[in-house]
């Protein structure tokens, strides 16, 4: 196969900022409509109280919390693809990591909405933050919800930093080719990047440093989200293996989301030459591996509950499989446990649209998983008198749909304004591919680099 021509890279990627297919505008319009529906639902709920969302005793938590876990989970794959694969020097990540990072950021922004709209008194949400105040009251540092607030804020800020720092060289390319308001925007954001060797050195160091910081952070963030459940005493929430289970589930649903957006971007922005079937193949293999880890932890959780012989936990587990929420649980097992085995076949992995639909099925499975974590234990808790089954109402479903609209809207706007494929990293990849056989040449390049460094150092 003929490789991508060097000169075409800038042109192709910059074109994505200009002329997407018509599908772009259609999807964007649908997303904005969904967001408007969500705003209406939230205003209605704000005015009348949370009762309109059809939560009740004992279902004090429902879709808002499961959506929150879902979106936080989705944000993990971007960090995985970018940071972990950067540290392990996997070259194939290069054309797809930028949008994975953007996905991370926007799914955090989506996730952050849910704990807010879920509060009874939204207008006092800032009380959760530890700030000096005239009440001389601190928030409760023992509460997992407080850890959540801290973890999400940290994660959101670090993800913005990671995305932005990784984009600086590309923003400079955009700056050099843009006119009008875009020129002003890119000039400001590219912070005077000239492409000097010293700049590259500093850039590389910073980037790796943030990546090293992000990997443990991402793991801790989802462990803390898992603590929301694991730290409680509710049967089937109080499970020690929840943190690793949540992290695996997060990476799993995130990888599925990457595949979805991979195919979508490839089509909408005509990135066929960059997002190749080989990359899809590798992404699918990674997803498959993570799916198996998740499967293992899921079965391990069932086994540990079953053999613990705790009366309440066992009852909740049995109710999950034969009770009123059984369709959700079986749906999850079908979508998230059985469906990924399709990725074991190479022919399937190489079919873009088959992968697209499969990734949607996997995400549906993971969304159902979050629902069955939150709701069934509430429905059959310690206190038999309060046992009740409640399904989410229109307001909750509208806000759920709106969250998907909100995420996709932010993502599409990002792709239209910023390069969603990393130009400089793709160039690097093409360069490495072209010169993979000639090691001498690489050494020459190294020598040249050293010389440039020395002379620039002298200048400084």
């Amino acid at each position, binding site marked *: 196969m003929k490789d991508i021509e060097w000169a075409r890279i800038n042109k192709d990627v910059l074109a994505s900022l200009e002329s997407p297919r018509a599908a772009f505008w259609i999807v964007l319009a649908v997303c904005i409509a969904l967001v408007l529906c969500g705003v209406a639902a939230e205003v209605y709920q704000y005015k009348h*109280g949370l*009762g309109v969302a*059809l939560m009740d*005793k*004992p279902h004090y938590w429902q879709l808002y919390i499961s959506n929150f876990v879902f979106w936080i989970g989705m944000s993990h794959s971007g960090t995985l693809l970018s940071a972990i694969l950067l540290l392990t020097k996997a070259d194939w990540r290069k054309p797809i990591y930028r949008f994975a990072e953007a996905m991370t950021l926007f799914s955090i922004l989506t996730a952050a909405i849910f704990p807010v709209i879920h509060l009874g008194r939204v207008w006092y949400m800032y009380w959760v933050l530890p700030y000096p105040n005239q009440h001389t009251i*601190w928030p409760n540092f023992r*509460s997992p*919800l407080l850890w959540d607030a801290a973890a999400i804020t940290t994660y959101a800020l670090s993800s913005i930093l990671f995305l932005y720092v990784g984009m600086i060289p590309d923003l400079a390319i955009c700056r050099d080719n843009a006119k009008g308001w875009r020129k002003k925007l890119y000039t400001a954001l590219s912070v005077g990047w000239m492409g000097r060797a010293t700049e590259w050195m500093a850039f590389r160091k910073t980037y790796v440093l943030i990546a090293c910081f992000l990997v443990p952070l991402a793991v801790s963030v989802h462990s803390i989200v898992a603590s929301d459940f694991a730290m409680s005493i509710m049967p089937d929430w109080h499970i020690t293996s929840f943190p690793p289970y949540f992290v695996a589930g997060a990476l799993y649903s995130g990888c599925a989301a990457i595949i979805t957006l991979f195919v979508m971007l490839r089509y909408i922005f005509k990135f066929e030459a960059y997002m190749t079937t080989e990359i899809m193949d590798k992404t699918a293999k990674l997803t498959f591996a993570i799916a198996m880890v998740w499967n293992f932890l899921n079965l391990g959780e069932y086994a540990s509950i079953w053999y613990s012989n705790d009366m309440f936990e066992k009852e909740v587990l049995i109710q999950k499989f034969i009770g009123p929420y059984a369709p959700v649980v079986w749906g999850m097992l079908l979508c998230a446990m059985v469906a990924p085995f399709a990725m074991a076949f190479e022919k399937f992995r190489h079919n873009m649209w088959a992968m697209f639909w499969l990734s949607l099925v996997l995400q549906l499975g993971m969304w159902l998983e979050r629902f069955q974590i939150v709701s069934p234990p509430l429905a059959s808790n310690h206190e038999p*008198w309060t046992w009740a089954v409640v399904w989410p109402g229109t307001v909750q479903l509208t806000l759920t749909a709106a969250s998907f609209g909100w995420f996709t809207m932010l993502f599409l706007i990002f792709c239209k304004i910023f390069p969603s494929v990393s130009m400089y990293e793709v160039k690097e990849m093409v360069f490495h591919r072209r010169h993979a056989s000639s090691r001498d040449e690489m050494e020459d390049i190294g020598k040249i680099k050293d010389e440039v460094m020395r002379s620039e150092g002298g200048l400084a």
Partner: protein
Amino acid sequence: MALKRMLENWSRLRQQDYYAEEPYMWGMAIDLNKCIGCGACVTACYAENNLPVVGKERCGSGHSMHWMRIERYWTEPEGTPEIEQEEASDFPERGAHYLPMMCQQCNHAPCEPVCPVAATYHSPDGLNTQVYNRCVGSRYCANNCPYKVRYFNFFEFWKDLPHPLEMQLNPDLSVRDKGVMEKCTFCVQRIRAAKDAAEDAGHPEHVEDGTLMTACQQGCPTQAIVFGNLKDPESKVKKSWASHQVELDRYEQDKSEDVRGYRVLEELNTESCVMYLDRVRDTEA
């Protein structure tokens, strides 16, 4: 200043018997043998604590606000486990066991550590206190309560009160707005008044047993509910606890044949302050 206060509180938290010298520890004993399931306690609670009456529809959708409830349980007759048989009879409610359930004022309350803004905390006299003004409505406490006795203001219930009825609200405590969690307080306004009265009478550390009654206790026609100070060796409630060998800080009581005392779900180590006396039935009759 705020930091200093936090460190102070923190060191207090680590101190095991910080409240050992406190003169009060409020507790309750409910004799299920005496309970006839009439619901007078529930009604009394509604009147005393400004509880909103939500109507049939919202009650059906699980939004009712009764801090106290009478739970009914049936023992399945031996050999015929089908509940349908009971339902098919003319008197489906025959043979119910009643269990008045309200906040158990746990000393290891699961609701307390999970509140992000510390709106629920433990008072020195053993009450599990809910500060309405501080509550942001995350509802984590209600999820983590194994007794499910916390009630959330899902709507602005007070707005539904027709005009002259607001005159009968109890002025001793607030009316709660939407988005706030609430629960049984052991009638904290009455406790406060009794403490003040004791102080005025010149014995600030001692509220005479029997002078202080909760609304549910007062309303109970069979005197199934006994409320008082567990730290007062002469109080009725303390004597009841002692005679049934129930101790506060244990999660499993040593039981002999002839004592009936137990606490609901005490194996969860909640150290609740409400003791129930098991119902004894003559199944042969």
